[in-house]
């Protein structure tokens, strides 16, 4: 469904031009659950943004469902079925959760439909549906609303950038249940998750390790997981939290 052919991304920095994504080629099949992991600063978020069209690639080609989308903008890619949940979701003064879910759904969905998406992400719908997506929401709440905006869309490729961050009171199990449910769609949806979490790596069909803008490893979970468990790429947030507590 998605082919990245020799894509690179360079950006200007204080020390001149730097290469953030360095000649990556990648093929993703339909109906897969793929996890990208790797050290911080390795280029994971950047890669996701290149796929969504938020940053332009400086070299290479991106093909989505047989269409060359290299020169398409964000909107066009979104309309082809690419969804992206940000690592750091944006806040909006004035727009309510309901407004945002309606924009995501692309139609005036009913309040009860919108509430269903919120319930899916573990938010008590009636408390949130009329709330503004502004600074009054906590990081964790915002993160879940972000996930709900992807649920409200019928996407072919759903990209989640560190969705587990800030899930504080929400069980991991819930997040995994959402992914499983999303995968049961008829359209052969593929889910691409950026994560360090062992429990998410555990349900991956395929794992990609990205470091310094290059693919270090790529393969099935059984191939990759044993090698990276316990390394800096995989850690269990729940275990860490319980140790800190």
């Amino acid at each position, binding site marked *: 469904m998605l082919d990245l052919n020799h894509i690179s991304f360079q950006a200007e920095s204080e020390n001149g031009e730097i290469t953030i994504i360095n000649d990556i080629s990648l093929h993703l099949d339909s109906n897969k659950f793929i996890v990208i992991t790797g050290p911080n600063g390795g280029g994971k978020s950047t890669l996701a943004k290149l796929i*969504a069209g*938020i940053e332009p690639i400086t070299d290479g080609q991106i093909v989505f469902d047989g269409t060359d989308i290299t020169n398409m*903008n*964000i*909107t066009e890619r*979104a*309309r082809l079925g*690419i*969804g*992206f949940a*940000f690592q750091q*979701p*944006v806040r*909006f*003064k*004035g*727009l*309510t959760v309901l*407004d*945002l879910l309606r*924009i*995501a759904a*692309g139609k005036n969905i009913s309040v009860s439909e919108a509430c269903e998406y919120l319930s899916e992400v573990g938010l008590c719908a009636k408390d949130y549906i009329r709330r503004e997506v502004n600074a009054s929401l906590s990081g964790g709440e915002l993160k879940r609303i972000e996930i709900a*905006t992807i649920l409200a*869309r019928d996407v072919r490729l759903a990209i989640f950038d560190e969705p587990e961050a800030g899930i504080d009171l929400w069980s991991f199990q819930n997040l995994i249940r959402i992914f499983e449910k999303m995968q049961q769609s008829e359209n052969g949806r593929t889910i691409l998750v950026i994560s360090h979490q062992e429990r998410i790596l555990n349900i991956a069909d395929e794992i990609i390790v990205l470091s310094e803008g290059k693919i270090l490893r790529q393969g099935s979970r059984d191939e990759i997981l044993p090698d990276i468990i316990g390394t800096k790429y995989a850690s269990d947030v729940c275990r860490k939290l319980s140790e800190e507590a």
Partner: protein
Amino acid sequence: MAKMDAIQMQLLQEVAGLHEIPEGAYNLRANGETAGRQSTANITITPKEAGSGIDIHIKEGTKHESVHIPVVLSESGLKETVYNDFYVGDDADVLIVAGCGIDNCGTQDSEHDGIHRFFVGKHAKIKYVEKHYGSGNGDGKRILNPVTEVYLDEGSTMEMEMVQIKGVDSTERTTIAELKADAKLIVRERLMTHGQQSALSAYKVTLDGDGSSADVVSRSVARDRSYQKLDLCILGNAACSGHTECDSIIMDEGRILAVPSLEANSVDAELVHEAAIGKIAGEQLIKLMTLGLTEAEAEEQIINGFLK
């Protein structure tokens, strides 16, 4: 309302949300003349003896009633100044809906200057909604210069919603409020200017009594080549609390001057001011574009939400 034509009805709907004769007390003014008036047992509307305008007397203890006093202008070149005085009795709790719509298809300027004064009795509660709207594509300007004076007696509350989103070429809004002990003022202003429009909005709120409070929030959007000056001032002369907030989005070649000011004349006055001007955050546009909106659609959603 037999005297009103389709354009006037449209204006009426924009500024007062009215499709038909409102319930309760009302005074409709169209092209400088009274187009309808109704008093109720508790709310009396009488024309002023000299000059143009009306006096509105609301009996003490009046609850859950409303007064509508919309003004519509559809004749090019009309210029009027109207004085409306509200006398609100103690303990009353009412909704007042004012507003002015101008449609100018002609070449001469049309102008409505409304001077509204509110004398609000002890422990009364007023919700005041004012919408200004302009339409018509003539060269004549649509000008609105409202002056609002609010005198709040002890323990009274006034909540004001002031909206001017479309079509007014030039506006100079002045709002003055004086508050006695435990009185409370809440203002929510929404402004949008486009084209070559200019809007000046000035507030001067004086907190004279202990326990009085004011919360004045203005949100505005300046598009195209329009200009706005927002002048929010609170004076604290007692043990009071005041908050002003000026939050603006600037677009295209718009210009905004925000002039916040606070003056404390009592050691127990607590006054806070916030002001921010900026363009729409790129991240907000990007997020909505990843949901399938075009950049222009995303902009529209963000502004609509902001001004809601």
